[in-house]
């Protein structure tokens, strides 16, 4: 495939995780996530006091879809992009900020966290995360999936879907 992949691991992953933790602390939000544009979770952090989050896979997929639709809308209106996305209900809010071309920062907060603070620290965090994700872009050919992995996965496919 032509699209590069973001592979966060080791030191880059730790740095991204620290940025998300700091953002949680500063903003007072419940959850922070770094997603790739395809809707896969790269890193996520939860506040210690926060209840169990909803299914992250579903959350990430819907947010990536929503962000993609918003970008398409921006282009239709002649804007290169809409940088941020904010949804606010009576008790919960969702803030999404672009992290370069390949990733999205998501902040989920409740009424105890002022939206201005979420946006301020969210934008700062997104800038730092952008440089981290840029360093973590890899050529898909170097992801290290070999034939041994393929054979193992094929055996599991047989097990799950039958021979």
């Amino acid at each position, binding site marked *: *495939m*032509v*699209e*590069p*992949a*973001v*592979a*966060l*691991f*080791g030191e880059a*992953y730790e740095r991204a*995780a620290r940025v998300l933790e700091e953002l949680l602390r500063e903003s007072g939000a419940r959850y922070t996530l770094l997603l*790739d*544009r*395809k*809707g*896969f*979770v*790269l*890193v996520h952090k939860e506040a210690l006091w926060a209840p169990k989050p909803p*299914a992250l*896979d*579903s959350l990430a*997929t*819907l947010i990536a*879809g929503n962000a*993609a*639709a918003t970008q*398409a809308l921006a282009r239709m209106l002649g804007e290169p992009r809409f940088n941020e996305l904010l949804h606010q209900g009576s008790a919960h809010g969702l803030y999404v900020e672009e992290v370069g071309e390949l990733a999205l920062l998501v902040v989920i907060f409740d009424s105890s966290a002022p939206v201005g603070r979420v946006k301020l620290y969210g934008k700062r965090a997104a800038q730092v995360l952008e440089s981290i994700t840029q360093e973590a872009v890899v050529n*898909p*050919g170097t*992801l*290290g*999936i*070999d*034939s*041994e*992995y*393929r054979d*193992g*996965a*094929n055996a*599991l*496919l*047989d*097990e*799950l*879907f*039958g021979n």
Partner: protein
Amino acid sequence: MSTINFAAREINFKIVYYGPGMSGKTTNLKWVFQQIPQNRKGEMVSLATEDERTLFFDFLPVDLGEVKGFKTRFHLYTVPGQVFYNASRKLILRGVDGIVFVADSAPNRLRANAESMRNLRENLAEYGIKLEDIPIVLQANKRDTPDALPVEMIQAVIDPERRFPIFEAVATTGMGVFETLKAVSREVLSRVASS
């Protein structure tokens, strides 16, 4: 392209079910959701209209299990088949690793099948991808339709060069659903292992 999360030790692949409206893409996903064990699937998300037509996409994560220490997961998506939802269809194709093209076997849908395949080619081209760059498996669905067209005729229209494997299916009963998914998953794995 597949996403590897080394920290969580996960490898994720994205498979998209494409095809004309009402060909059975969502029905394929629903069957998979109903049949696989609870511990191997996540929530199924459907963004549909009130009459159950897909509006944006359906989504189902399937856990294959652990391979070489990595949790391997397939994210299954459907696109809205109706012609006027093309903007949404295009978005769902971003980062796709493999495609199941679900064709309708009814004679009056032959043209819709052909148009949907042409639309797939055009939408992939916008991401700089050619049909041959990506694993594609065809499914001739609704084989229980009384006047179902011969599979060869459907293939002649959507894949005249016979480049892609084709499976017969009746997604409402599950016939051919797992076979199709397994085939595209195998091709995706082969492709990434050889890249």
